[in-house]
C-alpha cells in the first residue's frame, strides 16, 4: 500500500510527488556551493517560485496538503540539499501554526506563503531552549498596539524572512498561558538581526539573533488568542516533528545514494556472493535497511494521520523525529567510513551530509526531549491495536 499511498491517491498517480523528485534534481547542483559560501543562493529561491513549489507544498486550493505529501516533498529536497529542505520545512511548520490558530489573518497569510513569502519562527531564546517557559521577550499592550522587546536566538531564515512569528510574554508568570504569538514584519522599526551563527552544517540556511527593541505591531497581529502561544507551539509539534523526520529520511537517503555513487565508481560488482567486497556489501545492506526502516516508520505515522484526519499522537510524532534523525546521523557517519577518503574530499557531498545530519538530532526538540515525550505516553501504546 505504500505504492498506493505515495504515488497514487484514490487510484490516480499524484504528479506532484514525481515533480518533487524532479525539482529536487534541479537544486542538487547548488548544495555544495551554498554550503561552502554559507549563503542561500537567490537562484534557488527563484527556482522555488518559478516552479510553484510553494503552491505545491502548502496545498493548492485553499486546502492544506496532507502530511504525507509535505513529507515526500521535504524528503526529496533533503536528499539533495538539506538547507533547501529545511527552508521548506520551516514554512510548512509556520503554515500549520497559522492554520491551527484559526486566525482571521490565516487565509491571507497562507495565500502569501503560496506566493513565496518566507517566515522565520521566533520561539527560542539564549536561556530558553528546551525550557520554553524561561522566555523573557515581552509584549505589552499600549492602545491598539503591542510593543515587543526581547531577543530571539537560533532563528532560522533570519535576514531572509519577510515575516517573523514571534512568541512573547503577555503575562509575567511561569505559566503556559503567559505567552502569545505575533506576526512581525521584518522591516518593522526596532527589529534587527544582531548576529548570524556560523554553523558546522546546514550552512546555507541562515540562523541569527532577532532582536526586538520597542517593536510596535497592531493588536490584530496576534496569531491565535492571547496566551495561546505555547498551546499553538506545542500543537504544532505533532505536525512539525514528522516534517523533521522527513528531512532526516531525506538526508539518510541522500547519504546512501551518494555512497552508492562512490561505490559504483570503485567497486564494479557487489553482486558476487563471495568476493573481496562482501564486508562492504553487507555494510551497504545494513545501511539500506536503516534508511528503509526510518522511511516506513515516518510514512506509517503520516499516512495514518492523513487517513484518520487526526494529528499523530505525540509519541508517534516524536518517534518519527527521533528515530529518523538518529538514522540520518548514523547513516551519514557510517557512509563516510564505507566510502573512504573520497567522501571527505573538499566539497564532497558525503562530508556535507555528515555535518548537516547532526542538527537533526537537536532542533525541533532535542532527541532527549523526544524521548521524554515518548516516555510520558508509554502507557498509551498498544501495537496489537495498531
Amino acid at each position, binding site marked *: 500500500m505504500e505504492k498506493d499511498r505515495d504515488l497514487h491517491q484514490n487510484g490516480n498517480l499524484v504528479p506532484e510527488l514525481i515533480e518533487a523528485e524532479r525539482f529536487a534534481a534541479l537544486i542538487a547542483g547548488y548544495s555544495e556551493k551554498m554550503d561552502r559560501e554559507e549563503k542561500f543562493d537567490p537562484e534557488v529561491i527563484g527556482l522555488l517560485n518559478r516552479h510553484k513549489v510553494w503552491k505545491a507544498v502548502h496545498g493548492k486550493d485553499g486546502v492544506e496538503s496532507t502530511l504525507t505529501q509535505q513529507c515526500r516533498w521535504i524528503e526529496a529536497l533533503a536528499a539533495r540539499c538539506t538547507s533547501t529542505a529545511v527552508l521548506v520545512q520551516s514554512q510548512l511548520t509556520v503554515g500549520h501554526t497559522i492554520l491551527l490558530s484559526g486566525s482571521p489573518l490565516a487565509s491571507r497569510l497562507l495565500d502569501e506563503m503560496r506566493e513565496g513569502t518566507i517566515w522565520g519562527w521566533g520561539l*527560542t531564546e539564549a*536561556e530558553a*531552549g*528546551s*525550557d520554553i517557559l*524561561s522566555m523573557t521577550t515581552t509584549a505589552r499592550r499600549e492602545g491598539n498596539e503591542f510593543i515587543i522587546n526581547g531577543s530571539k*536566538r*537560533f532563528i532560522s531564515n533570519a535576514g531572509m524572512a519577510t515575516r517573523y512569528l514571534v512568541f512573547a510574554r503577555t503575562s509575567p508568570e511561569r505559566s503556559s498561558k503567559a505567552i502569545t504569538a505575533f506576526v512581525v514584519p521584518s522591516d518593522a522599526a526596532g527589529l534587527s538581526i544582531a548576529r548570524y*551563527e*556560523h*554553523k*558546522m*552544517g*546546514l550552512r546555507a540556511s541562515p*540562523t541569527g539573533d532577532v532582536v526586538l527593541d520597542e517593536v510596535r505591531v497592531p493588536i490584530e497581529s496576534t496569531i491565535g488568542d492571547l496566551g495561546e502561544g505555547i498551546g499553538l507551539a506545542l500543537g504544532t509539534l505533532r505536525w512539525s516533528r514528522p516534517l523533521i523526520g522527513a528531512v532526516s529520511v531525506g538526508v539518510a537517503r541522500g547519504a546512501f545514494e551518494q555512497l552508492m555513487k562512490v561505490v559504483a565508481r570503485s567497486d564494479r560488482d557487489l553482486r558476487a556472493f563471495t568476493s573481496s567486497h562482501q*564486508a562492504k556489501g553487507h555494510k551497504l545492506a545494513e545501511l539500506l535497511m536503516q534508511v528503509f526502516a526510518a522511511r516506513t516508520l515516518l510514512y506509517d505515522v503520516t499516512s495514518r494521520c492523513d487517513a484518520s484526519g487526526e494529528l499523530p499522537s505525540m509519541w508517534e510524532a516524536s518517534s518519527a523525529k527521533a528515530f529518523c534523525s538518529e538514522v540520518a*546521523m548514523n547513516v551519514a*557517519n557510517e557512509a*563516510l*567510513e564505507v566510502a*573512504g*577518503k573520497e*567522501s*571527505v*574530499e*573538499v566539497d564532497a557531498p558525503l*562530508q556535507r551530509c*555528515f*555535518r548537516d545530519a*547532526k*542538527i537533526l*538530532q*537537536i*532542533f525541533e526538540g*532535542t*532527541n*532527549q526531549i523526544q*524521548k*521524554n515525550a515518548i516516555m510520558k505516553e508509554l502507557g498509551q501504546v498498544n501495537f496489537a491495536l495498531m
Partner: protein
Amino acid sequence: MSIDMSNSDEDKRLLRESVSRLVADKIEPFAKVIDETGEMPEELYEVLTKTGLNAATVPSQYGGGGASALDGVILVEEIARGSASVSSILAMNLAGVAALAASLNEKLKEDLFPKVVRGEVILSWSANAPEAEGELIAADDAKGLVLNGKVTWVPFVDVGAAIVVLAEAKTQLGFHLVAIDTSKLKGHLEIGPLESDLGLRGVQLRSLVLRDVVITGEEIVDSKVGGASVLGVLHAVGRAAVAAQANGIAAAALGHAKRYVGERYQFGVPIAEFQSTRAILGAMALNLEAARQLTYAAGNQLDTGATGWGSQDRAPADSAAKWFASKVAVEVAIDAIQLFGGYGFVKDYPVERLMRDAKLTQMILGTNQILDIADAILSR
C-alpha cells in the same frame, strides 16, 4: 620550559600533568584559529621544538627525549586535547622516528634525527590507507633509485615547515621505504590541491606527484623483497598515534561537555541534574576509557614487543586501538554536541570542530582494521 621525558613507568601522571599545563597555555588557544584559517602559526613549531615534544621519542644519543612509545602515545593524546591538528606533528614524528629507529641505515638516522630534534623537519608519511591508490614506482639507475608516481594524503605539505616524506616505493622485486626530502626536489615535484578540509585543518593533506626523483642509497630506510618490517613499524606506531589523537579529541569533548552541563540551566537546574544527561556523559567516559586502555596497551606492546598474554586469539592492540578509538571519538564528539544542544552546532563553541577532527582520525589509515584483525587471528 622543557618537558622531562622520564622513560620509567612510575610517573606518567606527572608527565601528563606538566604537558597538560603547556597545552592549556600554549596550544589550545590556537585551536580555533588553526581551524578557521587552515594554517598552523609559526610559534607552535617553536613551542614544540623548545619543549622537545616534537622529538620526544628520538633516541637520546641523537639529542632526543628518548621516551618510550607509551610516553609518546600519552603526549600525542595530551596535545590533541588542545588541538588535534597540532598533535598531528607529534603523531607523524612518533611513527616516523620509530621507523627510522628500526632501520639499519645509520647514516640516515645521523642525518634526520638531529633535524627532527632541532625542529627543522617533520617526518611525514601518507595518512592514506595502505591498500589505497597512489604509489611510487622505482627504477634502478646509476645514481640510485628513480621514483615516479604519486603519494596521496601526505600531511604538512607546503605549510612552511620542511618535511621528509617516508614513502613506499615499489620495484619489480619488492619495495623500498625511502626518505624523500621535499626541499631538494625543485622541478621534480608537483603539489596537489588540499585533499580534505573537513577536519584536522592546518595539517594540509595534499598529494605529491614525483617525476624522476633520484634517491640515493643513503635515503633508503629499508629495502625488502617480500617482507615489510620497517614499514610494519611505521604503520603499527602510526595506528597507535592516530588512536591517541582520537582519545585526545574525545577527552576534550568529554571535558567541554562536563563543564557545559554543569553551567547550563534549564527548568531551574543545571542540565547535569537530568539522568538522561548522566547516561550520555557516563557512556562517553566509559567508551573513552576503553579506547585509552587499548591505546596504552598498544604503546606498551610496541615498547616491549609483547603481544598479549597467553591466548592465541588476541587482536593486535594497535589495530584494535586505531579502529575503536577513532570510532569512539566520533561518537563522543557527536554526543558532546548533543549535550550542548544548538550551541554545540555553532562555531563559537569547540565541540563541532571536535566532531570534524574526530572523523578525520577515522579516515586516516583507513577503516579496515577489523578485517586485518580477523586475518591475524585466523592465520595463527
